[in-house]
């Protein structure tokens, strides 16, 4: 027999689930989204209504008990969007709340370790964005880059790009998830591109590019070739650090 909580599959919703569970002293064995098909042997279903008052209180409680790094891990795991992620976070938070002392360094605990490992994967994906984004300048002077991270890591990388490229307009677009962010020199807004002429096969339509864009790509490609030391060729190592799945977005890897 399974006890189930339903919620709206938002992060605030998940924290509200935690709040409810402690309030009614009843803990789910699975979490489902509203409208998900219910399993056959269901014991009891509770539907949590997302409420910022509840989620804020839970988050505040976590802030008291966890380091900044561990709080970050929770965000990373959430952004993984893995089906098991929300219930993993739920179990982790329960352990944090129930234990009189900090559990975040108990690396022999399965949930602590699973959190760490999944957070690490998402963090790596975020790093790959920071490394391998390649902006292309459009006629309207916007530096644009399509991206295709494995996890929903784009929001986690935003801060880096905002700080670094504060004096240029730019946009990052997740072609896998069909949304992105645009920075207009003041703030960042979320965007979707309705016009299918903007992107062709996941890359920006060449008609939209600034006149000198090809020139700089060519310079970069040449530079990239010129600094290779032929006596030390090691393509295995190249692939290891720069997995082939990113190559289609890198001008230096196009001939």
């Amino acid at each position, binding site marked *: 027999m399974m006890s189930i909580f339903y919620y709206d599959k938002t992060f605030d919703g998940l924290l509200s689930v935690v709040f409810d569970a402690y309030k009614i002293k009843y803990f789910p064995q699975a979490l489902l989204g509203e409208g998900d098909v219910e399993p056959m042997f269901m014991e009891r279903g509770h539907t949590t209504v997302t409420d910022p008052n509840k989620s804020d209180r839970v988050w505040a409680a976590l802030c008291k008990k966890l380091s900044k*790094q561990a709080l970050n891990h929770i965000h990373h795991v959430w952004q993984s969007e893995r089906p098991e992620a929300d219930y993993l976070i739920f179990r982790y938070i329960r352990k944090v709340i129930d234990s009189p002392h900090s*559990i975040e*360094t*108990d*690396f*022999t*605990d399965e949930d602590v*370790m699973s959190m760490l490992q999944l957070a*690490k994967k998402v*963090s*790596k994906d975020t*790093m790959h964005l*920071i*490394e*391998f*984004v*390649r*902006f*292309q*300048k459009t006629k309207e002077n916007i*530096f644009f*880059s399509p991206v295709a991270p494995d996890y929903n890591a784009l929001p986690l990388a935003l801060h*880096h790009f905002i*700080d*670094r*490229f*504060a*004096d*240029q307009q730019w946009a990052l677009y997740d072609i896998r998830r069909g949304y992105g962010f645009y920075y207009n020199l003041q703030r960042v807004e979320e965007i979707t591109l309705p016009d299918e002429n903007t992107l062709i096969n996941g890359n920006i339509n060449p008609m939209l590019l600034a006149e000198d864009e090809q*020139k*700089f790509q*060519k*310079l*970069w490609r*040449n*530079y*990239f*070739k*010129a*600094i*290779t*030391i*032929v*006596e*030390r*060729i*090691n*393509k*295995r*190592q*190249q692939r*290891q*650090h*720069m997995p082939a799945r990113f190559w289609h977005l*890198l001008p*230096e890897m196009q001939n």
Partner: protein
Amino acid sequence: MKESLLHKLTILAESAKYDVSCSSSGTTRSNKAGAIGNTSGWGICHSFTEDGRCVSLLKILLTNFCLFDCAYCVNRRSNDIERVAFTPRELAELTIEFYRRNYIEGLFLSSGVIKSPDHTMEKMLRVVKDLRTLYHFNGYIHMKTIPGASQELVHQAGLYADRLSVNLEIPLEQDLKLLAPEKDHQSVYKPMHYIQQGMVQNLEDRRKFRSAPRFAPAGQSTQIIVGAAKDNDKDILHLSSALYQRQSMKRVYYSGYIPVNTYDKRLPVVKDPCLKRENRLYQADWLMRFYQFNANEILDDKNPYLDLDMDPKLAWAIRHPERFPVDVNTADYATILRIPGVGVKSAKMIIMARKHGRLNLDGLKKIGVVLKRAQYFITNNELSHYTIHEATPEYVKSVLRDTPLLPSPAQQQLSFGFTE
């Protein structure tokens, strides 16, 4: 497209590529209003060339024209090659355009020696100053210091660059004099010393005035060419260890000699670059910087060369069975660090995790300890008692040799991404 720019870029990148001291780590600086760029503390690689090396900075010479005649260098005076030079404006613009596209973390500027070391430094400074003041570039800048440069110019460079470096290139002075007649160790150590002084002075200034401009906040680095002269690994490691005594010295880079001037009879004949040896030196360097080893422990007069089949940490452990087995549940951090199969990260995790209860083999595995290696060096009641003493050092050596434990230099840089 201006064909000449492409042409210059190609030539001046090709002549800069052998300098390996190229990372962008060491400074964290967020953006300023109206400026472009920040620096991130840990180096970010933006690409990897076919040789597997990280591309982080635009590594380039201002010019490949050179007065000097160093035997190991493509740009030496007596080589008949095409000589070109960038204007400061060309180079600054190229840096900015590459940076805006997220190709690079910043600039690594070097140059052949034109007229005199100081004249060259002035030319290079023009580029770096323009980038900072005219283009409001706030990203990473690494500037080479030309051997023989004056204190005044080194000082100015430090006010604009994040990192400065003077390359030692040849570890033993008599070899340097033979191979690079215009250079001696003094011409290298003096600017190194100016950099050190600049940093110490700056620390003091900033204590008094918090707004005092920072001087080379990412410190200095240097490069040693491996295998171009008769030096052994012990000479090299002891030299590095002495260099690391200066607190401003952040990295010593090792570059396996690649024969570019085969006609020069002063140089050894080599078929392949000694990449294995270079890698072992990086591992040994890593041990000195992060594993609390000193150079004497790694190599001495009896063992002047690193074992090519074994990483230096394992080699040390096998030479010192009396230091094992170690009980991970009670030993201190420094002792745990010395166990083969345990890295810096897992050692730290062991210390934290054991507060929650006894660590068993499964726990160690979860933490990331490589048990295949560690098993001979730890005490443990789950394994049948088979440590390095029962197994004998010879046996352990035969089963564990040549399985690289420490990451390669390129990976080291990447791994900083997560360990904050």
